[in-house]
Structures are given as C-alpha cells and as structure tokens.
C-alpha cells in the first residue's frame, strides 16, 4: 500500500522535475543557438517567462471542441510516457509506474500525442495546420521504423520488454548498452533527430513554409499547454535514451549530465542544417537509420 502511494507521489514529483528540466533545456538550447549565431541570446529561463505569459493571456479563441483536445491529447501522451519511464536506477521516488512490457506500451503511447494533435489541428480549419499535420504524420512513419527496429533489437538481445530489466542488466554487467549493442544505439539516435523536430526535421512547424503548422491557430493557453507538454515529452524521451543506452543514472546530477549530452546532438545538428522536404526526410529515415536498425536486429539475433 505504501509503495503505490509513494509511487504516485513520485510521479507528481517527476512531472515537476520533467517540466522544469525540459523548459530549462529548451531555454539553454535557445541560448546555445544564439551563441553559435554570434549573439548574446535570451536568458536560460526565457522559456518560463514565455510560458507564464502564454498562460496569462486573457482570451483564447477556439474553433470547436476538438481544438481543446489537441493540446490535451499531447499533454496526456507526454505525461503517460513519463509515468512509465523510470527516471533513476533503483530509486524509490523516481521509479514511476513501470511494469513488464512497458517498452511496447511506450511505443504506442508515444504516437498517441501527435494523432490527437492531428484531430485538434483539423478542427481549426486552417490549411496550414492540415498540411502541417499530414507532414508530421508522414515524418512519424519515417522515424518510427528505425526507432522500433532499435527497440526490437534490444528486446531480442536481452529477452526482455521491460525498461527496468534493461537498466538492471546494464548495472549488473557493468557495460552500457551503447557498447554492447552499438547499432541499435546509432539507429535510435538517428531516429531521435526526427523525434525532436529540430532542423533539418522541423518540417511540421516550418515557419517560412507553413506559418508554424499545426500550432497556427493555437495561441495563449493552448500554446502554453503544447509548450509544457513538449518539454515534459523531451525530458521523458531523453530519460528513456539514458535508461536504455547510457546505463541509467543513480542520481539526478548524473541524469542531467547524460540527458544534456544526448540533447545537444539534435540541437547542435539543427543549428547548422537547413530543413528537409517531407519526402526527403522520410527517405533519410528509411536509408541509413533503417540500415543500422536492421544491422542491430541481425547483431542481436546472431551474436
């Protein structure tokens, strides 16, 4: 009885941590981008101010019921993914609600948000939103394949579908999965580029093409919800990568360092890249990332 209440409390705490860390990371990425671009850049807490301002907007126009659901679905998806991802190794507070088979559940729940967003964006009636959503879904078809392949390779290699088991294996054996199944890591990292939607895969909200895509009709509180769900989701994904490949983390500091390193891959790659077209992006994901995914599965099966 105790443990389930502790776990629920832990989920709330990890949500707060995820929100804070995700927002700070996005602020830091803005700062780092600015430094690359030869300028001072906003303070690292700028995203909190933006969120506060968006939350304090006094009017929020909407075009129907479904538009409420778009951001809500995104939020639900992010929080649910966060809930089943253990944040720390053997942590009482941060182990969250994971169970056996959560890796497969995670694959489903991560797609849930964008689909809900598609419904919400469809209701707004803005053609930019509609095109943005179709782009987003097609891109998802692209990066899901190497991502699923990488996870399947892990499942085959270690005969488990539980994230906690994978973490325990890494702790027990003393090596990280990045070394014991490198191809899966490569495929997963390449898929991650698409997941984070930084350049060159920011085709969903491309401002110069679609005027911010699915978000075009969402201002104020809708945008606030989307922003916070994006930051929670970012943290969840980063934690998942650390859990799966970098041996998890035994305390928050270690987690922050590892997630930040992973987070810098899409950010820094994005700073110097133009944007792909939709079909080019899909072709990219079905090229080398899928090849590495296949290699990972072969590696897992035969070694």
């Amino acid at each position, binding site marked *: 009885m105790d443990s389930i209440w502790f776990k629920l409390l832990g989920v709330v705490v990890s949500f707060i941590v995820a929100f804070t860390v995700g927002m700070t990371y996005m602020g830091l990425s803005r700062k780092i981008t600015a430094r690359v671009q*030869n300028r001072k850049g906003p303070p690292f807490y700028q995203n909190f101010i933006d969120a506060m301002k968006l939350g304090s907007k006094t009017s929020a126009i909407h075009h129907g019921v479904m538009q409420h659901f778009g951001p809500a679905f995104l939020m639900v998806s992010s929080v649910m993914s966060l809930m089943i991802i253990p944040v720390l190794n053997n942590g009482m507070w941060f182990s969250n609600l994971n169970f056996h088979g959560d890796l497969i559940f995670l694959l489903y729940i991560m797609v849930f948000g964008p689909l809900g967003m598609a419904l919400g964006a469809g209701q707004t009636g803005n053609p930019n939103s*509609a095109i943005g959503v179709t782009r987003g879904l097609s891109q998802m078809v692209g990066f899901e394949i190497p991502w699923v392949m990488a996870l399947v390779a892990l499942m085959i290699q270690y005969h488990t579908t539980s994230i906690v088991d994978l973490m325990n294996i890494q702790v027990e054996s003393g090596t990280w999965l990045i070394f014991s199944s490198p191809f899966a890591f490569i495929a997963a990292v390449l898929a991650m580029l698409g997941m984070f939607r930084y350049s*060159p895969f*920011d085709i969903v909200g491309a401002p*110069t*093409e679609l*005027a911010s895509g699915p978000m075009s009709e969402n201002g104020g509180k809708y945008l606030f919800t989307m922003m916070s769900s994006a930051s929670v989701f970012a943290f969840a994904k980063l934690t998942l990568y650390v859990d799966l490949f970098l041996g998890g983390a035994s305390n928050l500091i270690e987690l922050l360092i590892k997630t930040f390193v992973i987070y810098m891959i899409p950010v820094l790659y994005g*700073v*110097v890249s*133009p944007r792909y077209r939709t079909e080019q992006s899909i072709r990219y994901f079905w090229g080398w990332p899928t090849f590495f995914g296949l290699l990972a599965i072969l590696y897992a099966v035969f070694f």
Partner: protein
Amino acid sequence: MKKYLILQKNIQDKMREKATTLYLGPQHPGITGNMMVRLKVEGDTIVKATTEVGYLHRAFEKLQEKRNWLQSFTLLCRFCVPEPDPVEESYARAVELLEGREVPERAKYIRVLMLELARLGSYMLWYGGQNGSLGLYTMGQWSVGDRNYILDLFEELTGGRIYHMYIWPGGVRRDFPEGFEDKVLRTMDYLEKRVKDYDDLMFDNAIFQKRTQGVGIIPKEKAVEWGVVGPVLRGCGIRSDIRIDDPYEVYDKLDFEVPTAEGGDIWARALVRRQEVRQSIKIIRQVIEKIPSGDYYNPIPNPQKWTLPKGDAYARTEAVRGEVGIFIASDGGTKPRRVHFRGAAYVHGITLLENLLVGENVADVSAIMNSLGTCPPEIER
C-alpha cells in the same frame, strides 16, 4: 478499359475540385515582403499560383509629378528598400542624359563604390533570406549581422543607414570623409574572411544542395524572352550584365568577371551570387586604388528653378535583383512630366513566379521567391 478511363478522369476532376487553396501572405513569414501568393495545392504539389500585389502601392510616380527634379530623391530611395542606390543612380543618370550634364571622374568612381557597397549589403540580406527560407537561420544571423558593417560605411559617408540620397545629378553629395578609404578596405578584408565561413555553412552543406538543386528551373532558351534579368539570368548560363553590355560610369575601366552557372535552378543562382560577392569586393578594392582626385560634384542650378529640356530618357542599372531602370519624361518644366520605374521584380515577382511555381512543392515557394529576388515594393511602387 474505356470505363476505367472515364472513372479515372472523374476522380481526377474530383481531386481538382478538392484542391486546397493556400494563402501565402500577406501576413506570412515566408513571403519576401508584403504580397500574397494564392496557391491551389494538391497534396504537396502546386497546381496553380496567382499573385496578388498592391499592398505597398504608395503612388510614388504620382507624387513625383508634384515634386521638383531634386525632391524626387527622397521618394526614389524608397522604391526598393534593400538596395536603394541603383534606383538613385538610374534617376540621376537619366536626368544627366536628358540634360547633357557632365559628371566629374571622381564622382563616377564614388558612385561605383556606392553601387557595389549596396550590392554587397543586399547580397548579405539575400544570404539571410535564402537560407532562412530553407530553415538555416544561423546564416541569416551571421550575414545580416555583418551587413551592419557596410551600413556603418554608408552612415559615415552619407549620414543614413538605409536611405542615402547620396547620388545626385551631376555627381555625389559630398566627398569622402577623412580615412574613409582605409575603413572600406578593412571592411572588405573582414567580409572576405566571413564569406569563406558562409561557404562552409551554406554551399558545402549537403542538405542545402539537396533542397536547391533541380528546384525552380528556368529554361535557358526561354529566359531572355520571359524577361529574366540579372543573377537569375546568369544562373541560366547566359552571360548578361548591364555593367558589361551597356556600361555606365566607369565599369568599362574596371577589371571584373561576370560569373555564370548552368542549370537555371536555385542552386545555380546561389552559385552566381556567391561569385558576385567576391567580384564586388574586387571592384571596391580597384575603385579605392584607382580613384582620381578632383571635383566630386558638377553643381546644379537652384533646384526650385531648375528646368530640364523637353524630351525623355531611360537609364538602366544592374542591381542585385537585375535590371533597374528609370524612365523620365520632361515637358520643359521644373517638375517631371512622368517618372516610371522598372524593377526586376516587376517581371520576376508576377509572371515568372506564377509560372515557376506550378508543379513545385509547397515547401519550396519561399525559397524560389527569395532566389528570384522578389521585392514587392518594386512591383507596386
């Protein structure tokens, strides 16, 4: 089989009816300025493009009929804001042609310097716009930031960052301030260094190449006929430059090349512009080296009473976007009978754009507009 064909045709018609109308602009971050492109889109492909302009129509030419010959200059530089000097130059030269006024040699060199600096500044903006349209914002931050150094030169020489009103009939408004030549050369050294960085970021970038090659192709044999001018025409492989073909000022005494590139797509245009930045720097160095001393201004009479002989003149200048011309007609009075401005965007931005966009991807509209150098104030005036 026949039934199948009919069915197929019906489906196609249905699809065409369902084609989404996408309004790009007037409020849209991807549009170069304040204009609108109405797109009929099937999936991601454009089937029809219609431009709508007029959001910036200020009736310059009407207002110039109410101003005297010199007062027009305040209006002229607002024709196309990124690069106002070619317009001033065209007007000044048209007035000089009509009146037969001589320009001192030094003034001609200073004018060339101004034009080339303006060209550089405009290319810096283009670097930003072209890459911003493709999502590479870092480039815009660099190049637009570096453009400020050129604007500083303008400010020191003319007093204004954007609007100069510096090239006048009969010469230029004032001479170089002390130590200006050194500053120009230092800025050129800096820019030369930076242009290499730009190349690393932009032209060596595989994604940039993928996005631009084969997009927005202008056929070479049709290009001249369609009214394509400037770097866009040179990107089709045709060596055409008013600085060479119809030389003005002292361009025939300077040594520079007119770069061309084959292909006619955005990539070819970008290659041409990449070389032209270097050529401009080269010209500026030569001007600083060769500039003679002497008078910089052949004074005009009291502008309130200054009349031009009856007749008309047309002068053209090579700007970044292409041919920029001014037609003036005089009835012998103190005010113009008619001033008519010809901008490259007048052709590029409407008929050519509407034509090029058909069959392209929605994602490329902004990139094509930027590569054509569409400048809406030039269309609408």
